[in-house]
């Protein structure tokens, strides 16, 4: 069993037009930027992207949106100042946008990964984000019904990996990555370093290799050190 792939380009070579792709990351930490840049080089169309933010400037997800590759973005906070590519296309009606409370966004992804059919959350009750959604009173409190959210591919970013796809993270790299790794048909991990099987301690592995299909080691892009 060897899940290593030599380059990001090879790791994303089989993604078709119209694919649904999750991308981990909250700000630069844990964002699989090199995989996304490789995806841009594929020149695909009609992608559905699931990412917490809206992309930054003309790089990675921002660039993918700028290129016109994205049909729809499912997101939570796509309104940071750097997300001008999304803003421009959205205001021109060229991209569809679904916005979810951040806890609902991640819990829907977890539900898909955990094989659940849906769940009730108190978040969003009585707001415009719950419009059209089923509300149910449970033990006297209203909850909104939410469905699982899955994808064809997940791009995730971790710190270290082995060839079985076991992953560790450092600092705030985890964010959505361990959850998205559970919820896509094909999970591709961009990592800082690949080590031998057995080198990661069983307790420190945060994403077990069972969730991961491909691993590719990359150099950190200098742009990732910039403030978002």
């Amino acid at each position, binding site marked *: 069993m060897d899940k290593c792939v030599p380059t990001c380009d090879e790791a994303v070579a089989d993604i078709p037009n119209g694919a649904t792709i999750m991308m981990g990351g909250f700000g630069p930490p844990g964002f699989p930027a090199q995989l996304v840049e490789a995806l841009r080089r594929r020149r695909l169309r009609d992608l559905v992207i699931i990412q917490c933010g809206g992309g930054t400037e003309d790089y990675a997800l921002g660039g993918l949106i700028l290129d016109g590759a994205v049909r729809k973005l499912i997101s939570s906070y796509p309104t940071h100042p750097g997300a001008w590519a999304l803003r421009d296309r959205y205001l021109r009606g060229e991209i569809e946008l679904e*916005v979810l409370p951040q806890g609902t966004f991640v819990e829907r992804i977890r539900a898909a990964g955990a094989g659940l059919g849906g769940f009730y959350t108190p978040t969003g009750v009585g707001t415009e984000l719950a419009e059209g959604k089923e509300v149910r009173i449970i033990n006297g409190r209203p909850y909104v019904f939410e469905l699982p959210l899955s994808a064809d591919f997940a791009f995730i970013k971790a710190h270290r990996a082995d060839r079985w796809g076991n992953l560790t993270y450092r600092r705030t790299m985890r964010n959505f990555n361990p959850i998205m790794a559970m919820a896509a048909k094909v999970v591709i991990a961009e990592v800082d370093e690949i080590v031998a099987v057995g080198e990661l301690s069983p307790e420190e592995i945060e994403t077990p290799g069972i969730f991961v299909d491909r691993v590719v080691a990359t150099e950190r892009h200098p742009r990732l050190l910039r403030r978002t």
Partner: protein
Amino acid sequence: MPLTREGIAYRIAQDLPDGSYVNLGVGIPSLVLQFLPEGRDVLVHSENGILGVGPKAAAGQEDPDLVNANGDYVTLLPGASLFDHALSFAIIRGGHLTHAILGALQVSRRGDLSNWKVPGQRVPGVGGAMDLAVGAQRVWVAMTHVTERGEPKIVEACTYPLTAPRCVKRIYTDLAVIRVEGEDLVLEEVAPGVSPQEVQACTGAPLRLTADLREMPVPAEVRGVPLRTP
């Protein structure tokens, strides 16, 4: 005279007991930590998976893998812990945070909160605002009492899109501390030199006065400039 933004933050800091776990929104809430009395262990939560956020990283000392929910490169305090987004929002929604201190566009007399979207905002984006408003044990609002155009932010009913109904427990402004009690707003404190009448005049809903009303205990250095009569 009304408090500075730092004055509001100072006032809130005094009300956070040892052992608090707090999420601090952007703006005034982010100033709270620096005014915490010595010896109190208060852990700051960040949506992206931190308990125990420390000060911002010094220039050149940024760890590229460590930001807070605001996107700032930060540090970790000793005793900090890190986790994924699912656990981070289980902490929020599950009622584990003792306090969420949030900015607001409007708060209604029954504690409805609007803080995520102004009407006519063309690109929506909510982040963790609704989860925090619904989940924290105590939702406290920190804001200036009126808008830049002098309009009251404390209103009969919110006209901006709601973040969550009936969630705000207490409002800290540059003029007053106000407790939300059912459908009542109880004026607990006024800024030094500000009268209850002056507070009521720039509040869009009736304030209830009680015998416990007192002046906000803030030191001179965080007091602001005299109130312009609205």
